[in-house]
């Protein structure tokens, strides 16, 4: 069979991969800020919860988390009488976002802690409220520092989406496996898919670089 005939099913799968990547990266970014700032909180409950989240999701394998959400969580739901059976898309996005969010949270924490102490002191001296200090002083200086690592994490997340094919989600990896089963033409299919992932990674990298340049203007002048 001609390799061009693989392109239609593969691009269907590619669209699923793109959607998974976009949703889970955005949601993961949200988790990263939420728990990264949570880890720096003075409230022991918030801090403890954030630390536990980060350790659990960084300390176990993504595939373990995915299987746990998809296979094990419904059984807990059954035991307590709530329906926790998620469709594969929701389970996939949740696992990917929770996983990448835990890695991102450490990046957020590091960048926030790296903002010079004088900046906090100056903000306090100028009578900023703590919320205003966070939004106007800390984050604008911390976010540009996070961007290079966030770029790597976004590519990491794109690569990780391939694992959702294992809970029968029809992404690019899943389609490739189907085509291989059907045609036995593994060299062509997997070469094609490798290059498609590579192309997507280059696009993700380019987008993150643009974002990096955009937020770069928030950096304090003279630093």
């Amino acid at each position, binding site marked *: 069979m001609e390799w061009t005939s693989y392109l239609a099913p593969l691009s269907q799968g590619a669209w699923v991969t793109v959607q998974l990547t976009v949703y889970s990266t955005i949601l993961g970014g949200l988790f990263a800020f939420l728990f990264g700032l949570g880890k720096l909180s003075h409230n022991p409950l918030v801090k403890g919860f954030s630390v536990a989240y980060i350790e659990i999701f960084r300390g*176990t394998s993504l*595939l373990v988390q995915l299987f746990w959400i998809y296979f094990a969580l419904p059984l807990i739901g059954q035991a307590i009488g709530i329906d926790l059976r998620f469709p594969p898309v929701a389970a996939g996005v949740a696992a990917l976002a929770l996983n990448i969010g835990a890695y991102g949270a450490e990046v957020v924490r590091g960048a926030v802690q790296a903002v010079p102490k004088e900046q906090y002191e100056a903000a306090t001296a100028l009578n900023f409220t703590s919320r205003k200090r966070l939004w106007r002083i800390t984050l604008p200086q911390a976010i540009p520092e996070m961007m290079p690592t966030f770029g790597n994490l976004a590519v990491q997340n794109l690569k990780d989406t391939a694992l959702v094919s294992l809970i029968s989600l029809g992404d690019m990896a899943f389609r490739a496996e189907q085509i291989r089963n059907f045609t036995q033409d593994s060299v062509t299919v*997997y070469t094609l898919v490798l290059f498609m992932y590579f192309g997507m990674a280059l696009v993700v990298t380019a987008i993150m670089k643009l974002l990096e340049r955009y937020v770069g203007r928030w950096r304090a002048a003279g630093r």
Partner: protein
Amino acid sequence: MFFGIEWDTSSQWAFAVSIFPILLHGLVVTLEATVVGFFIALLLGLVLAALKSAPTRFVRWPAKVVTEFIRDTPLLIQLFFLFYVLPEFGLTLPAFLTGALALGVQYSAYTSEVYRGGLEAVAKGQREAARALNLAPARTFTHVILPQAIPRIIPALGNYLVSIMKDVPVLSVVTVLEMLGVAKIIGDRTGGYLIPISMVGGLYLIMTIVASLGVRYLDTHLPKRGLSLK
């Protein structure tokens, strides 16, 4: 029954206790795959790092592109590629070795950058001083650069060792019976996924916490000013 060990479904607790030795069988495979994959990554990474610092750009550029390609494509697809494509070229490896090779290839892209970063982080003055003292280039490398680069390289490699361990479950797709694959099969056969998969999560957590304490110990206890190679 699995690995000749019977499980006991009379109560949840008895079930957890009875499958623990089965999971330990899987754990051993996980650790073996981690170690073999890591060594392949160390060697391949060294080759890539050497090619990337070759004197001619006709070698340097392809090596950089290959590194980028490996790093930007998923382990799962690389694994399928090796698993299905190598036999077509007459190279049929057992599933375990194919899996370890896939881990090694994927992480060679990362280790090669660790080597390069570690070598480049050695202060420029050190090379200049060696040159001023009339040391031969080979001697400069083995006696001046390397001893100072190694304490930076080892902790970073340790972090990738932990990452490899967390990626081993992917190997279950090519029938390697590592810990998560074993837990999944127990779940398939008994209908009880919750306990085996949670136990795998717990075991992973213990392993990664111990491993990261080890990496931190190395990071603080390796001499920062250089390791004597004598």
